[in-house]
């Protein structure tokens, strides 16, 4: 190693190796990724973000929201719900099999399930149990299906129905996945908190809606102005200590509206091949984390 040229060659080789590993390989693997048809919704996923949400992404980047918020949901595994989809012709046999599959069911409950199929037999079981139960029902005439349910702390918190995968970020530019959770994850915030006004109040002054929040306020995204002839319909409904002075109102700037539009566009409601889950239409305003509930 005591000669310059040898040293140069070795550094060059090491550099080339690291470049191939972490620049070329990912690009070869993911560079050609394109939108994919998702059967459950009959549409291509992901869709490019449109309208003022594009500008909102820019506001998100400029304000450095990524310093405190991630946009990635982790998942530790799957559990399965077993559903009897079709009881078939041999109801007595299937009823006994249902009871065999779930020992906790009484005769009456098992009969109910068979009579009212499709119905869930077992919840939250492992892949092995699914296989053994599928084997049990083989040739019985009854049909069972397994619904997939992703698990993990993030999912239990209601931060998203499934893990995020590379495909979800296809149209983000720049990709702001984040590495810090000083604040909650935002990958699915649009489903969790679908109320536009909540977001505007939260941006203007987080403590108006979340007591003890440590998020900085963004008053510069709002304009405080004198009330004209009549109060603006866009004015924020601020109360108590957060209210502006008498005769003044707080109006969101286009940036604030764009940012909120962007936040609302952050939703995970498509299962994809890499991250399957039972598809149910996302119902906004459910699963609201307790910390997100408006403070009284």
């Amino acid at each position: 190693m005591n000669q310059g040229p040898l040293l140069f060659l070795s550094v060059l080789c090491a550099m080339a190796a690291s470049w191939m590993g972490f620049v070329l390989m990912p690009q070869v693997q993911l560079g050609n990724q394109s939108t994919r048809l998702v059967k459950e919704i009959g549409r291509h996923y992901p869709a490019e973000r449109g309208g003022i949400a594009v500008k909102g992404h820019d506001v998100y980047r400029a304000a450095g929201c990524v310093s405190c918020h991630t946009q990635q949901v982790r998942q530790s595994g799957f559990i399965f719900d077993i559903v009897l989809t079709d009881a078939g012709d041999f109801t007595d046999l299937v009823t006994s099999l249902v009871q065999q599959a779930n020992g906790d069911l009484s005769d009456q409950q098992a009969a109910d399930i068979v009579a009212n199929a499709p119905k869930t037999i077992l919840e939250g079981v492992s892949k092995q149990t699914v296989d053994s139960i599928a084997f049990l029902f083989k040739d019985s005439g009854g049909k069972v299906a397994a619904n997939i349910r992703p698990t993990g702390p993030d999912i239990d918190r209601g931060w998203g129905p499934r893990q995020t995968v590379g495909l979800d970020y296809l149209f983000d530019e720049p990709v702001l996945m984040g590495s810090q959770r000083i604040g909650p994850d935002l990958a699915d915030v649009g489903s969790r908190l679908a109320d536009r006004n909540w977001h505007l109040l939260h941006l203007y002054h987080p403590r108006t809606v979340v007591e003890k929040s440590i998020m900085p306020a963004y008053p510069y995204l709002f304009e405080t102005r004198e009330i004209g002839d009549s109060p603006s319909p866009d004015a924020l409904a601020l109360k108590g200590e957060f209210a502006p002075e008498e005769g003044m109102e707080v109006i969101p700037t286009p940036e604030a509206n764009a940012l909120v539009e962007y936040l609302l566009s952050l939703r995970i409601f498509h299962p994809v091949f890499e991250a399957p889950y039972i598809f149910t239409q996302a119902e906004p305003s459910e699963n609201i984390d307790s910390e997100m509930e408006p403070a009284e």
Partner: protein
Amino acid sequence: MDVTQSSKSPSDWTEIDSSYRFPTLFLASKAVAWLLLGSIFSLIASIKMHSPSFLASCPWVTYGVMIPAALNAVVYGFALQGAFAALLWITMRLGQVKLVGPGYLFIGSALWNIGVLLGVIGIMAGHGSGHTYLEMPGFVSPILFAAYTLIGGIALVTFHKRQVRELYPSQWFIFAALYWFPWILTAGSYLLVMSPVRGVTQMIIGGWYASGLNVIVLGFVGIAIIQYMLPKLTKRDLHNGYLSLFSFWIIMLFGGFTGLLPGQSLPSWVGSLSAVCSVFVAFAWLVLAYNIYRTIGGVSGKSGGLSYKFIYFSAAAGLLSAVLTAWASRASVADVIQFTLFLPGLKWLHLYGFVGMGLLGCIHYFLPKITGIEWSRPAQWTAIFWTYAIGTSLVGIAFLVGGWKHGKGLIDPETPFMDVVREGIAPFVRMSTVGELLVFVAAALLCWNVTTLFCRTYCSCLCLGGLSQNKAGTSSETKKSQPKKSSKNK
């Protein structure tokens, strides 16, 4: 690996040192100024964490821009600029060669500072790119690259013209860092900022850039400083050059793959590869530490003076950060510490503890040698060491311990998020604010001392009627320390 020729007379050394006098003063004084600015930014960010209304109405200092502004000021302004100053000095000393083209170096460093300044202003004005370590707006990268071409080019030409042909381990590390940096800077900023690739590949390339910058470029300069300074200060020979060679190869081959944790929304091989490589790097660091331990074992810390303490701290922080990074990349640990304060804790340990401390030790040691003027207030330097060391440790411990608690809360879905914030983040952020305040004090003192030295050197040159006479004037001072150096002129 010993370089024991003492062919140079003291006057030759003075000539070598004085060729570097003003460029290094410029680089060092700007570096510490950036450290001061960076520490002010992180202090503001830190205060905002417990008083979120503090300076809220100004978009230029909102938390989200203070964090990247502080990081970029410290990485590009302080760490890289300080690294240039240190590596040029080590190259000149080990090669026993005068600096080639000080004028170009001056232009390069001025350009570099303009680039960093524009970059930091760009981030604060909301033009940050959103990619960690590459937040500066796209137009800054060509400026930095042009500046680097001058600085790095001069370092390489100086290296090439060395009088002592045999290479000392520190030189391999410096050489590798010099080649690595322009490579990652151009590839990183082109693929992420100027002509971005699509989708999550951005994250992987961002990780590649971050690990290249931290582990290879800054890490190698840090290791070069440790391997050069510790034997020099303790007047011993490096224990075993082959162990250094081993560490060099391992870190160079695997260091570029570290830094992406398993469990993110990336292809899973990325996290696994990164985890394996982190373990290799930690192993190389253990070998390096053993080598250093065998070199300096049995030496009392006092004999090396204050610089020894700086470098010793730097080595300990470097080892700790490499081992912790490897530990954190285990899947079971990564699940906990992912997305938590643990990661900024590691960053602090590496950037401020390992790289920063090494650079400060270097600056403390070589500025008086180069200028021929001793520090006017040595006691202030002791104060700088302790405030900086305690401050960095406080922030590091607060973030690492807090990060663990933060993560434990995050992976328990029964703990409401607000409780995680209250128990896992808030108390530790308060502790880190104290640490950041101490680092700020240290940076301010440092800035004052280096600037004073700058002015005194400038004045002494003016009084003596220019550089040529100044050499003669200062040589009497410099001579005192010469015999030591020439007997062990590494």
